[in-house]
């Protein structure tokens, strides 16, 4: 959709290697928090329930439960405030948007783990992630 000149402007602000994450993944999002002079890293742990946008506008939503209350945060994929996204486990899902999780309570909130890691085209990523992950025992999945 974009104009080539627009793309060339956006390109300067894109991360060369944006974090790789899929819908249903349980992730740790490391964010930079700047409080006046001080700077620290905060980790937001949860399930990726949606991705939207492309280019500089790409963002993703992470949902977690804090004190029995659902919390969702939207992150810009290319923001310098998102330092790192650590994928803890892959969820087995059949939707692009997991908004149905909002209506789920307790154990129903869990997602089955996808055992076979999606084949990643980047050669570096394949070396890091083994083709198979040991299946976790039933009951350990999902955010607490």
């Amino acid at each position: 959709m974009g104009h080539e000149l627009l793309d060339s402007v956006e390109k300067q602000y894109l991360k060369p290697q944006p974090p790789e994450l899929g819908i249903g993944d349980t992730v740790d999002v490391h964010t930079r928090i700047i409080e006046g002079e001080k700077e620290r890293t905060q980790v937001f742990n949860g399930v990726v329930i949606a991705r939207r946008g492309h280019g500089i506008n790409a963002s993703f939503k992470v949902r977690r439960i804090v004190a029995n209350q659902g919390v969702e945060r939207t992150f810009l994929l290319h923001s310098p405030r998102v330092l790192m996204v650590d994928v803890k486990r892959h969820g087995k899902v059949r939707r692009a948007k997991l908004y149905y999780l909002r209506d789920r309570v307790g154990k129903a909130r869990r997602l089955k783990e996808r055992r076979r890691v999606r084949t990643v085209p980047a050669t570096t990523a394949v070396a890091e992630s083994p083709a198979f992950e040991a299946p976790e025992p039933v009951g350990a999945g999902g955010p607490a």
Partner: protein
Amino acid sequence: MISALLGTKIGMTRVHDAKGAVTTVTVVQAGPCTVLQNRTAERDGYDAVQLGFGDVKPHRSTLPSIGHAAKAGTGPKQHLREVRLEGPSDVAPGDVVTVEMFEDGVTYVDVTGTSKGHGFAGVMARHGFGGQQATHGVERKHRSGGSIGGNSNIGTGRGVKKGKKMAGHWGCDRRTQQNLKLVGVDRDRNLLLIEGSVPGPSGGLVFVRKAKKKG
């Protein structure tokens, strides 16, 4: 020293700084503009520079405009615009001016363009009126503006107030947005990044100049 250019609105996007603060910007491809003529106080009564922007094929142009541009040693231009100056011009016909003029000391700009055309629009779209109720006996008047004036006003010579907001043609007007922050200048691709929105559609002609009222 002129500080104005003709350009094309490319579109909008967003940029962020190292801390992650996001700014919405409009990308404008401004210039390069060719100086076609200088107006001088002694000959014309005022000092100004005539800028030309965008090339036209000579066979699609007219002989007068070809001749006018030839005096500056260039081909015919699509858009001409005069820029008033405080004193005598420091550029000569044939000189090319680019976004470099905005690199030093310009932090705010005014942008003039032709706003997007909306055609004949009703009062709800054009002026943000609330319309009328969906029920309670309202018939065929749900988007109407309501009363435009009372009977008692007629005898006193007032009637419908002047400037009463009504339905009508909306858009396609010359509009100037003042004091927009200049976020970035890309000399290689003749781009200006201007904070916020500027009048007109993407691809439309805009006139960018140093802000009149601010730094």
